[in-house]
């Protein structure tokens, strides 16, 4: 649905985005991950048409991205939220939807719809100044999706929301994706990514360093770690097949050595007359993968001169 190919954007002191390509499928929830200053915002701004890329292509449904027409099909919720402080909330929602090309009556009925769904009807004639931060966040989400965009870009959509409202938004994200919208979800919060996203990419220093489905990525970074709970534990544990990392009561965390399979481990335990109650593979969390990949590179991005 969205294809990004070899996108580049250099600023005077930084290669903000340096040759990034990826695809977003229709109806999928796509996680865009990366440490602070990795180039996520710049990348998003190019997709939303705010910036022109220096090089590379953005294809939207197979056609070259056209800011004027395609901006109506994109909904963007930036990390730094912003709405007109002194404008009435209902009017504001309609205004933003009409800027995206909705007719005034359509915008009105959509706004009413969403306000009812989120139980915000009483806000209609209030101003942003009167809202709490979490309320403003909900409103921002509504204005992002009001015009039925095909591509929804959410930058840290849950920051500042209590668990109840976060769930409300999460359910809406799932519902929108199920109805065919593609969602790009940018965040630092890995547990949310694991829960929500189908596909992720990780960028660091303007380059893509990871691309795949959540499951695939976990498989790729697995370290052959298993947890086994058995009783009684065998007195002698062979270090040729696996090594024991931790031992806690009847539970062992083990790493299976190269050239051996879980079956070898199980066979050994069975041979030792040990009753296995739990045997499970330990996949790395995205958080661990993220830290592993980003760690070691200098924490904050350095300014560097660009030769061009």
């Amino acid at each position, binding site marked *: 649905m969205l294809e990004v190919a070899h996108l580049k954007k250099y600023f005077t002191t930084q290669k903000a985005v340096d040759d990034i390509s990826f695809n977003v499928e229709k109806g999928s929830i796509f996680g865009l991950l990366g440490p602070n200053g990795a180039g996520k915002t710049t990348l998003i701004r190019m997709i939303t048409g705010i910036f022109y890329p220096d090089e590379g292509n953005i294809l939207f449904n197979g056609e070259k991205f056209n800011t004027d027409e395609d901006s109506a099909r994109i909904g963007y919720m930036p990390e730094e939220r912003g709405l007109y402080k002194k*404008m009435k909330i209902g009017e504001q929602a309609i*205004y933003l939807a009409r800027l995206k090309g909705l007719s005034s009556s359509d915008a009105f009925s959509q706004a009413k719809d969403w306000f009812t769904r989120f139980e915000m009807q009483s806000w209609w004639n209030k101003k942003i100044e009167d809202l709490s931060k979490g309320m403003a966040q909900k409103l921002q989400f509504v204005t992002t999706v009001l015009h039925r965009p095909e591509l929804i870009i959410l930058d840290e959509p849950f920051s500042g929301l209590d668990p109840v409202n976060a769930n409300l938004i999460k359910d809406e994200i799932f519902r929108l994706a199920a109805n065919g919208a593609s969602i790009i979800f940018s965040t630092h919060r890995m547990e949310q990514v694991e829960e929500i996203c189908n596909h992720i990419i990780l960028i660091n220093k303007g380059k893509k360093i990871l691309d795949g489905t959540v499951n695939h990525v976990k498989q790729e970074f697995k370290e052959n770690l298993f947890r086994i709970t058995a009783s009684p534990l065998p007195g002698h544990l062979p270090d040729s097949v696996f090594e024991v990392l931790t031992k806690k009561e009847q539970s062992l965390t083990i790493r299976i050595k190269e050239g051996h399979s879980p079956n070898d481990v199980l066979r050994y335990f069975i041979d030792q007359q040990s009753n296995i109650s739990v045997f499970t593979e330990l996949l790395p969390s995205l958080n661990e993968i993220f830290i592993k990949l980003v760690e070691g590179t200098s924490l904050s991005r350095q300014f560097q001169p660009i030769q061009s």
Partner: protein
Amino acid sequence: MNKIGLIIRREYLTRIRNKTFLLSTFLLPVIIVLGIAGTVFLAIKGKTNHRIAVSDQNSYFRDYLKSDSSIYFDFSPGIDTINYAEKNCSAVLIIPVLNEGQKTIYRLKYKKQLGLANIDDLEKRINAAITDHLIYIKTNITRSRLDSIRASSDMGELQTFSDEGKRSQQSSQGLSYAIGYTCGFLIYLLTFIYGAMVMRGVSEEKTSRVAEVIVSSVKPFPLMLGKIIGIGAVGLTQFLLWIVLGIVLALVAQAFIPHELLQEVNNIQKANAMGNAQMAQSSEAARQIFEVKQSIQNANWLLIIGCYIFYFIGGYLFYASLFAAVGSVVNEDPQEAQSLLLPITMPIIFSFIIMSVAIQDPGGSLAVWASMIPFSSPIVMMARIPYGVPTTVPYWQLLLSMILLAGGFLFTTWMAGKIYRTGILLYGKKPTWKTMWKWAFNNG
């Protein structure tokens, strides 16, 4: 495009609906009128009656220096240069021995400043006294006869007519000056007010971060243009309301003039139209009203209002985009705006100063040049136009000035648009002039 219309509509409506708009629309004229009335009142009030002691040992001036309500000359012999203050006089005038045909120095000693106007007045009176004194001693004329000649000689009146080929029209320099000054001043004031409004609007969008949301639907340039046009429309609405207000006030004022007086005014008008200017029978008040009415009717209002609208829009567009550019580069700190605003406010202030000089000589070269250059033309040209087109301002000058202004605002808008486009999404450090120059003129 449809989107720019939406932006204009929002900018316009949110401001028109605001209470401050109505308040400022009706209060500004009231404040200006009160201000003028206040200064006039104070000027009249401030003309304190000065008692000036005259030390005139030879009694040259005793009968010739005339006292009136504003200056009273005290000739009492007891007053001298030492005790005048105790005798309630603000100054003492020392009359030396007069040497005929030679320049004589009169000295005025004072404890309290008399003011420039009073000194001027005093000098005139002294000169008149000398003339009278000389006439009296050189001829056999009697005092009373001299006085009556003086009284009856004060009857000349210079009327000016602007020569427009076939017909020559009576013009009123005073009225032209008043209209010109008002127009120039209004454009000066409104450029500031509405320019600052544009700047605030832009910087509000930036600091509230709504800009990023909007810019993902609309390109920055239409966003800036929509804001400028919307706020400009507010300015025009305000101007139209002022015209309506002015007409209503004029009608109300007319209702307060007694009916007989109006009748008389009408009679003069009829008599004038038939070609016999026999005003002698009508009263002084009626004649004055007639003159004011006549000169107001003679002013070419259609032209003035038309040009005002053009120059207001032109000048506003010229400066508003620059204000927008400044608004786009500053962050939360309003102090940052100050230094960036200086290069924009200085030309406006200079234009106003040039205008107040140029209006004294609306055909002079300063006036002509300043009304061509787009930086100052809206203010200066508006001060010249009431003096007459095409007499004081030839058509070619008006046309050239308009074309240059249009070119000027297209240029500033284009340039400001490029700064705006980058500035609106840039947070953090305030850019330097050099980087802003790069944004504007490099294809970055």
